[in-house]
């Protein structure tokens, strides 16, 4: 085997509501593929994208897969940060408690359960985007 290839910093930016279009499901697919290739990957949710994380969604009547359950597996795929834009939340009358609690278990810290979500402002998010090698925008 060749020595490990260099990893890049990937950020998957989610701006669309979950089920009206295919963007959210495709973004999640891209995230899981990227994670499978051992890249340093984080996600960001802003604008209507914050609706993807709202808990208690039931897709059974619209015939679509309930992919928000899969967000809970992000930690297993070595995602360590999910940025959520607090300004987008406020503009939609949402609070952090409306969103899925997302955690990961830190293998290096005796499997301690830690929060995946970091609450950020739009200005902070701009800086975060600037620091990436690759930004996948959905």
């Amino acid at each position, binding site marked *: 085997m060749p020595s490990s290839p260099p990893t890049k910093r990937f950020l998957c930016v989610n701006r669309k509501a979950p089920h009206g279009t295919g963007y959210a499901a495709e973004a999640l697919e891209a995230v*899981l*593929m990227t994670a*499978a290739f051992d890249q340093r990957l984080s996600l960001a949710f802003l604008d209507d994208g914050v609706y993807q994380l709202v808990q208690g969604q039931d897709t059974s009547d619209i015939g679509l897969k309930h992919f928000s*359950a*899969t967000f*809970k*597996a992000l930690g*297993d795929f070595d995602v360590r940060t999910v940025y959520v834009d607090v300004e987008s939340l406020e503009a939609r009358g949402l609070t952090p408690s409306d969103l899925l609690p997302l955690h990961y278990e830190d*293998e290096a810290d005796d*499997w301690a359960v830690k929060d995946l979500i970091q609450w950020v402002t739009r200005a902070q998010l701009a800086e975060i985007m600037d620091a990436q090698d690759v930004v996948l925008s959905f």
Partner: protein
Amino acid sequence: MGVEVNGHTVETDEEGYLVKLDDWNPEVAKAMAALEALTLTEPHWEVLHFLRGYYDEYQIAPTVRVLTKAIGRKLGPDKGNSKYLYGLFPKGPAKQACKYAGLPKPTGCR
């Protein structure tokens, strides 16, 4: 395509994965394994049940790495390594075991 189980055919895709996930039962797993000359033993079932539980919770099949880590945690470090899992499922734990567990093909397996 399909797999014969107790006299009727359960539909599978061209690679042998179930078309309807609800068609799964342990007999289906045994029949799929038999097609690949594998007899399922208790250690195989441990992995299959883990995969089904994982899919049920997260609506996604884990990758090999996720599977290895999770099995190691749940069943002990002597089982949480690829040598153990490849020993059980020579064609690849995620790919072959997911098939027998009735899950879709995992992301990252092409």
